[in-house]
């Protein structure tokens, strides 16, 4: 007895629209451009050509969703993580939150990761798993002459690496990152208490005027509705004087970002 063709499909009982929308969304988040009509085309294609193998699914998706050659690389990567890799584990936590994986911006592995200390074989980095939650593997039995002790080698993060770079070597992306960092840092600017007070629910002193005014409603019984007041806190004043003349040209972009953050 032969099995009918519809039972051989890979996606029996799968909501095609949901699949197309979810995968299209992943592709978009990975940087590919996916028009909405392309997702509709994919739904239709999956109906016309029910995939029997992952290969079939790959080609139906690629033909309908990808519209330009540079996107192919992104597509291949997203497809591999979604359908070929063990990215979505069976444990619920991973399903709900996703595995902390390479999805938003995969960093090139290797040279920038901090290397734990201890004795280390040259090929150990690849098999040692996650360095932050497993202890570095130390092996004592292999006493070969070229087996050297390694000191913990702490490499700088991407942001602190910029500290060594002079401003004129920053490219646009780095400048934008600097601008964003400055914007985030400004709310931490110290404040000073002024002599003025302002009504506020969490103030430490009772606001007499407001409490009396509010007690009019209760027949001048103030205890029912005590108002509080607090000192006004204002940011410490800061005057920035920036030289953006030609001689300071290499610094001006960074300085202007600083001024924008404080504005």
């Amino acid at each position, binding site marked *: 007895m032969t099995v009918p063709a519809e039972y051989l499909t890979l996606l029996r009982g799968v909501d095609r629209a949901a699949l197309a929308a979810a995968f299209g969304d992943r592709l978009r988040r990975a940087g590919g*451009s996916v*028009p909405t009509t392309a997702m509709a085309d994919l739904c239709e294609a999956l109906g016309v050509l029910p995939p029997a193998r992952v290969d*079939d699914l790959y080609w139906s998706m690629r033909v309908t969703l990808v519209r330009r050659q540079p996107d192919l690389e992104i597509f291949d990567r997203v497809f591999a993580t979604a359908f070929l890799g063990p990215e979505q584990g069976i444990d619920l936590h991973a399903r709900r939150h996703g595995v902390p994986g390479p999805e938003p911006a995969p960093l090139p592995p290797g040279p920038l990761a901090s290397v734990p200390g201890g004795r280390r074989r040259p090929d150990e980095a690849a098999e040692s798993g996650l360095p932050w939650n497993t202890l570095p593997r130390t092996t004592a039995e292999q006493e070969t002459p070229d087996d050297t002790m390694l000191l913990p080698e702490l490499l700088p993060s991407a942001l602190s690496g910029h500290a060594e770079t002079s401003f004129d070597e920053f490219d646009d992306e780095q400048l934008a990152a600097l601008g964003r960092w400055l914007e985030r840092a400004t709310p931490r600017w110290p404040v000073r208490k002024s002599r003025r007070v302002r009504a506020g629910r969490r103030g430490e002193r009772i606001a007499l005027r407001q409490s009396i005014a509010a007690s009019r409603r209760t027949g001048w019984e103030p205890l029912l509705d005590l108002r509080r007041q607090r000192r006004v806190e204002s940011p410490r004043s800061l005057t920035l004087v920036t030289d953006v003349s030609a001689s300071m040209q290499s610094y001006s972009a960074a300085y202007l970002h600083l001024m924008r953050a404080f504005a």
Partner: protein
Amino acid sequence: MSPSNDEDAALPLTSADDVRARFDEHDYLADQGLSTSVFLALRLGMPLLLEGEPGVGKTAAARVLASCLGVPLVRLQCYEGLSAAEALYEWNYQRQLLAIRLAESHGERLTEADLFSEEYLIERPVLRCVRYDGPNPPLLLVDEIDRADDAFEALLLEVLGEGSVTVPEIGTFTAVHPPIVVLTSNRSRDLHDALRRRCLYHWLEYPEPERVCAILRRTVPAANEDLISSAAQFVGRVRALEVDKPPGMAEAINWVAALSALGATELMRETVVATLGAVVKTVDDRETVLAGLDAVLHDSAS
């Protein structure tokens, strides 16, 4: 326009595997990507945009598809400056003038509507496909669309999206059976998103050496096995060199045909130098290949 006489082949294609088998019958070895994209384009009624390096078999695929389906192939070769008058339709200016003269001599009055009627319309490839009234819609091949201007892409949008052509003076012609449209591009410039959105897309890779061998065996039956495999390796190595125009499948086929016409059974330095013009097409590339010839020959032989 070259109507196919292959009446037996005029059967609909039922699946992607069927596409591959039927292409195979016409001596075109399609991979799964191409067969899937062709099948989906036919079933979804969408245009198919084939992109790839020159000589990977984009135009040949369209031609084979037309003969598989037994439908006429209408080919529109794009070039810089291609306009609606050459691609869509044109008014027959001389006939219009003549009609005015005749009307004057007979003392009749001609209105504008009389002059801009279907009688004076010259059909160009796109309109011809849209107005085709046979049972099987023709295959419109828009070849090398990247060579046409941006404005021309915009002209095609209506026919790609709705299968219709609007002539402002007359109205809109809508195809009863929308034509099958295949567009090819060498990616010499980026096509507009609006055009891409309306098409299914397939990027044709240069085939891997085993596949090149299979294609060469099929297309140049006279060549022997050793020659084919070392030539496939050789062309692959030349592609890896820093050449301006990497040889495509078409060059490989021509070259092996040339070698076998000269009676070569294996790659010898003298024969390769003599026939190198079939593989590399510029002086600079020729020099690059000659400089690295010994290494390439050694690798291909091994």
